[in-house]
């Protein structure tokens, strides 16, 4: 069991993967109901860091720090904070097929939301820097939270950057992203850009040449 008091995992799923499967099966058999099992449980890695250039650090919820150097496989769990240093980059692959590249000076926490009707939604809480995201193999619910906005996607490729004051820039390479602040939501489509600022609705999408905005991610993906 990996759960710690500081973990962000819902208690309902804070069991080892094995124990939770047995418990769920027993409950389903005993009451004659088959409910959708959780898509993950605490103890299961939710992603792997597979490539790093420069300083790439993972801060676990229990305070342990681990680093990846070059290509490899460093498992990531719910609640982990991932951080790159100046001049550094990293690449992650989530178990459901989502790829995330981190540009330099980037930091986010891996979180989730659970809903009875929808199951888990993977959430990355981006507090600094820039990430490129691509979902593969069908629709995958994913949300990127920044201090002033949230980008929600299912099947798309996009780049999102947050400034120290929270200003958030979203560039959609392909697909559609539901981009919203507390003051309104804007659907942002292929080859457009939108900005989210504190206290304001996201800006109307404007056409943009996306290639320069995502060029930084090409190197780390190879």
């Amino acid at each position: 069991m990996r759960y710690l008091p500081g973990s962000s995992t819902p208690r309902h799923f804070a069991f080892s993967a094995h124990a939770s499967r047995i418990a769920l099966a027993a409950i389903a058999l005993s009451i004659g109901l088959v409910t959708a099992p959780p898509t993950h449980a605490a103890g299961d890695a939710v992603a792997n860091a597979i490539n790093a250039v420069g300083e790439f650090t993972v801060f676990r919820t229990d305070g342990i720090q681990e680093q990846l150097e070059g290509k490899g496989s460093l498992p990531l769990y719910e609640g982990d904070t991932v951080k790159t240093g100046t001049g550094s980059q990293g690449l992650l692959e989530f178990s459901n097929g989502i790829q995330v590249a981190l540009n330099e000076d980037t930091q986010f926490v891996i979180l989730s939301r659970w809903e009875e009707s929808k199951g888990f939604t993977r959430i990355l809480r981006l507090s600094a820097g820039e990430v490129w995201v691509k979902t593969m193999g069908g629709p995958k619910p994913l949300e990127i939270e920044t201090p002033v906005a949230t980008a929600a996607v299912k099947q798309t490729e996009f780049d999102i950057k947050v400034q120290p004051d929270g200003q958030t820039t979203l560039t959609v390479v392909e697909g559609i992203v539901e981009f919203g602040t507390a003051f309104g939501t804007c659907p942002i489509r292929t080859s457009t850009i939108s900005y989210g600022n504190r206290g304001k609705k996201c800006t109307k999408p404007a056409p943009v040449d996306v290639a320069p905005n995502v060029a930084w991610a090409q190197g780390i993906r190879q």
Partner: protein
Amino acid sequence: MNQRITFSTPLLISMPLLLGALLTGCETMQKLVSTPKPQGLNTRVYSANESSNTVTVMDGDTYQVLGEIDTLNYGPHDMALSRDGKQLWVTNLANGRVSVIDTDSRKTIASIYTGTRAHVVALTNNNKHAWVANIADNTISIIDTTIYRILGTIPVSKGPMGIAFSRDGKFAYVSTQDKMVNVIDTAAHQVIKQIPVGPNPHFLILGPDGRIWGTNTGSNDIYVIDPNTQEIAGSIEVGPAPQQIAFALKGTAGPNAYVTVTGLNKVVVVNATSPALSIREQIDVGEGPNGIWANAVGTTVYVGHTKSNNVMVIDTGTSQVSATLPVGKKPIRVVASR
């Protein structure tokens, strides 16, 4: 001798205006008047049981425990009930998540991570957003109450402890462990002022007088903030470790502020009808009174006791305990439907 009372035309015209002015003056009383309800159908009372990870559901009219809901998280602490009573938002202090409970099915239907030590939750006046104070992150998370998505985070000063909104919704008040109340402009999501208060300021609530009432758990007093001036308008000592406040009537007297005072094992009743605060009475309750809420008409308060694990129902007319309901462990917050 017959005496006839006659009204001049100007007086007759002005009477509706006078009546309107009188009614405006009685605004505080109107807050506690609700539409008639079929007996025994409506008032639901909920306690957040921090040490059993559950919410107990009670019938506030018949004084019966109806059931217990698993929050699917750790350390349920604060609650906010939607105006229609359908959704109950519960913070979970230990693992930083908010549970959303469907009150009809009595099930947790969503679990949202907000931040480290998610402490209190308040719904905006239009119920579109839930604001959650994360003590260890020094932030307020703003959640869309329809899609459960966090749409923004507002930085505040150290250790946010309580949240309340002004009557017009233009300002949010956040008490913090650095002895401040942060005033947030809700249109800009910016802190526009910090009001110094006492040590360990905790609970905040909008009073029927339109002022913001708060407790200083560390200095044994409560205070009120005037939203027109954004200044402290008054304070009064009520006893060691005051916790939470509810507003109710005692016959013709009131509204009064009912303050749980843990160090006394009492509810202290403060006159809330005049600018100068004064204590009307003290009511003996159980061990460790903390959460408190009044029914919609202000004739009953429900008091949670964190040491004796029960909720006492107090008739504010007689100041007597009408019933004692067993709930989960450490019931720290109590709310009731409107």
